[in-house]
């Protein structure tokens, strides 16, 4: 766990970490050889994103012992950033209802400031709460009055393909930064409310905000198209079809595969080359993503490592290990906690934006706490809380298990129930439910690691 007992063994992880990452690479190569390279790269890309999310959670839990149960919401905010930044603006929708939405936004801001003003003005006087409540209700009614017609107009604009405001039409890589900022903003709000009280409140508050954020994304069609999804997000990397027609790529593929292509007649040559081009273009695109994600991961990992080694990192760990003592030394515990909570959430937001970029679409319906909150937690705990490299390793390993657990679970159920005969209702039920086995397995892994190896695969290093 985050607080280590004083008699904990000293750890030096260099050898362990190298072996662990070599084993990971070996597993991925095994998948590449036995299944397909495209699959191995797909898994690798998602591993990189998972590792980044785990890194963000590790900042919160490993550095500071903050328990965030709302990772899903911060990841979804990152995903939403991809729409806002990269989709082309829908001009008709802006004309139809853009002004109304902007006015509604202004009215919302005015409501918040009016409520804060009344709150300050009347603090400690009679009817304080009542008046603040009245201001808020009036503000909400006004906002809804302004917003509703605008929303209806926007959603009526060609609902089958747009029906939303669109975005700014900027390159999608900016969305990674914007996603970080959006998540940081939400984290600031939650942190302001729940930090400084005791730890469970933060967990409950983050649980709430993440559900609300995802509900907003599912229902506010004018902003995100809701469950109609936004597909066809622009890419930071080339498209497969363009690659297949690019001369430089053709000659590259020809040169790499010259052995296979040699000695074929011209029709065969064209056919084989065509299928090779299709395969290698998809692999090339995936490699581009891998490169980009690795770059981001390395930068953030390096920043985390530096931060943890700095005087700031020592202060943060001191706060984690003994809040009262750190407070007595004059450290601003709540302030540091807020800072860390925001930083960690921002990293999760960046990862969420990268995930939507990789998928090429934003689908609010797919954000489930299981996949986006719980799984990331298992990664951090298994990898080693407090150790940045551990979080990365956990991200890689747990994602690989998660992906491969479903076919293995299905195969296992199939083998176990094969004696029951084809028509058996119980067998069918068990085969249908194989997917739930991996939830149970993951829960079991979390509990077992917490109990028997609380510092994970790569324990925090003593300094």
């Amino acid at each position, binding site marked *: 766990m985050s607080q280590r007992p004083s008699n904990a063994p000293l750890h030096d992880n260099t050898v362990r970490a190298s072996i662990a990452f070599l084993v990971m690479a070996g597993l991925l190569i095994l998948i590449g050889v036995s299944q397909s390279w495209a699959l191995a790269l797909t898994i690798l890309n998602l591993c990189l994103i998972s590792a980044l999310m785990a890194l963000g959670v590790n900042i919160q839990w490993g550095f500071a012992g903050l328990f965030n149960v709302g990772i899903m919401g911060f990841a979804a905010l990152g995903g939403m950033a991809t729409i806002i930044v990269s989709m082309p603006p829908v001009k008709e929708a802006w004309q139809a209802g853009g002004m109304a939405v902007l006015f509604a936004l202004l009215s919302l801001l005015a409501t918040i400031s009016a409520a804060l003003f009344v709150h300050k003005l009347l603090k400690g006087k009679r009817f304080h709460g009542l008046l603040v409540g009245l201001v808020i209700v009036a503000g909400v009614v006004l906002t809804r009055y302004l917003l509703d017609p605008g929303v209806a107009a926007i959603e009526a604009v060609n609902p089958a393909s747009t029906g939303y405001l669109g975005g700014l039409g900027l390159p999608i890589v900016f969305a990674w930064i914007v996603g970080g900022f959006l998540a940081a903003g939400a984290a600031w709000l939650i942190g302001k*409310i729940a930090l400084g009280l005791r*730890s469970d409140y933060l967990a409950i508050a983050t649980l709430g905000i993440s559900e*609300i954020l995802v509900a907003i994304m599912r229902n506010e069609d004018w902003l995100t198209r809701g469950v109609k999804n936004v597909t066809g997000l622009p890419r930071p990397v080339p498209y497969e079809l363009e690659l297949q027609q690019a001369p430089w790529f053709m000659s590259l593929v020809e040169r790499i595969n010259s052995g296979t292509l040699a000695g074929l007649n011209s029709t065969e040559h064209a056919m084989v080359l065509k299928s090779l081009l299709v395969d290698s273009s998809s692999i090339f695109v995936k490699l581009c993503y891998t490169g980009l994600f690795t770059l981001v991961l390395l930068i953030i990992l390096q920043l985390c490592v530096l931060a943890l080694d700095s005087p700031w990192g020592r202060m943060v760990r001191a706060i984690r290990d003994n809040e009262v003592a750190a407070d007595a030394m004059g450290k601003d515990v709540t302030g540091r906690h807020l800072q860390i909570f925001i930083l960690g959430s921002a990293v999760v937001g960046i990862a969420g934006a990268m995930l939507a970029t990789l998928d090429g679409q934003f689908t609010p319906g797919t954000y489930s706490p299981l996949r986006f909150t*719980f799984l990331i937690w298992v990664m951090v705990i298994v990898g080693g809380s407090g150790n940045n490299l551990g979080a990365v390793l956990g991200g890689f390993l747990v994602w690989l298990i998660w992906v491969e657990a479903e076919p293995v679970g299905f195969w296992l159920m199939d083998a176990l129930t094969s004696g029951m005969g084809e028509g058996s209702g119980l067998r069918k039920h068990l085969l249908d439910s194989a997917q739930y086995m991996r*939830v149970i397995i993951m*829960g079991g892994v979390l509990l077992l690691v917490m109990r028997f190896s609380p510092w994970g695969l790569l324990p925090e290093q003593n300094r």
Partner: protein
Amino acid sequence: MTDFLNALVVFANFVFVPALTYGCQLALGSLGVTMIYSVLRFSNFAQGETMAFGTAITIMMTWWLQSMGVSLGPLPTALLALPVGIFVTALILLFTDRYVYRYYRTKRSKSITFVMASLGVMFIMNGVVRLLLGPNDQNFADGERFFLSADAFRAWSGLDEALVIRTSQALTIILSLLLVGLLFWFLQRTKTGKAMRAYADNENLALLSGINPDRIVRITWIITAALATIAGVLYGLDKGYKPLSYYNLLLPIFAAVIVGGIGKPIGAVVGGFIIAFSEVIVTYAYKKVLTYVLPADMAPDGLVQLLSTEYKFAVSFVILVIVLLVKPTGIFKGKVL
């Protein structure tokens, strides 16, 4: 006058009775969380899934009873299956306590460690519940559908609008009253209940006076299992069983516990009703009520709904935030977590 009465009946039918029922269900669920908090000192994230688990077992038992031709006449057969559901759930909770929580208790880990372990338990239960009955809706309500039907009410009152009370709603309210009364009697009057309160209040002092902590913990889990299963079954009878909706109850339950004051049983009950009534009042569309009350030319065009039902947990969240900002101890001055 008739218009006003009609409006009142519509309001009672669509706001008051549903909110009262939902409040009872929340209160029972919250009582479980608050009991666990006061005795074991952590927020149990697995409460929602515990409710789902108890309900799933009860449903399976109900189906078996139905297949045997057993029924309770006008009452749902699920009532007969309830003791089995409670028993199995209690066994599972005692099992998790023995193999998950007890270790951290003897180590005196921080409460956040318990919360995390409860998250692990929650996901295992989540998988088990779906393994048992799948992720879809299941209907297990039988018996008489209405306690007070529309025709009966109209014949009695002569109004256009009708107040309908379903059997599940009547059952929820009656059963909750009984249970809450019983629980308070147990806590206030019996020796074991007093020992529990003593242990919750001051662990060391309680140990010193010879109270057996293992027994207290076991009884707490059994009471929680009973409350969670009954709350879950009543919720399922009322709104239909769907595993996901039990997970979504988690936030209202926590909000109710904190609003009332964490660790205070009376707070959990009051908090449950506050959350339920706010949720239903804010998400109900008042068009029909207003058409009766207002003159004909002022009748509203829209639905007159403050918040669409998709955002109903935003209500619990906002109440939670207000309480955290204004009075973190809650109404009844519970512990600050």
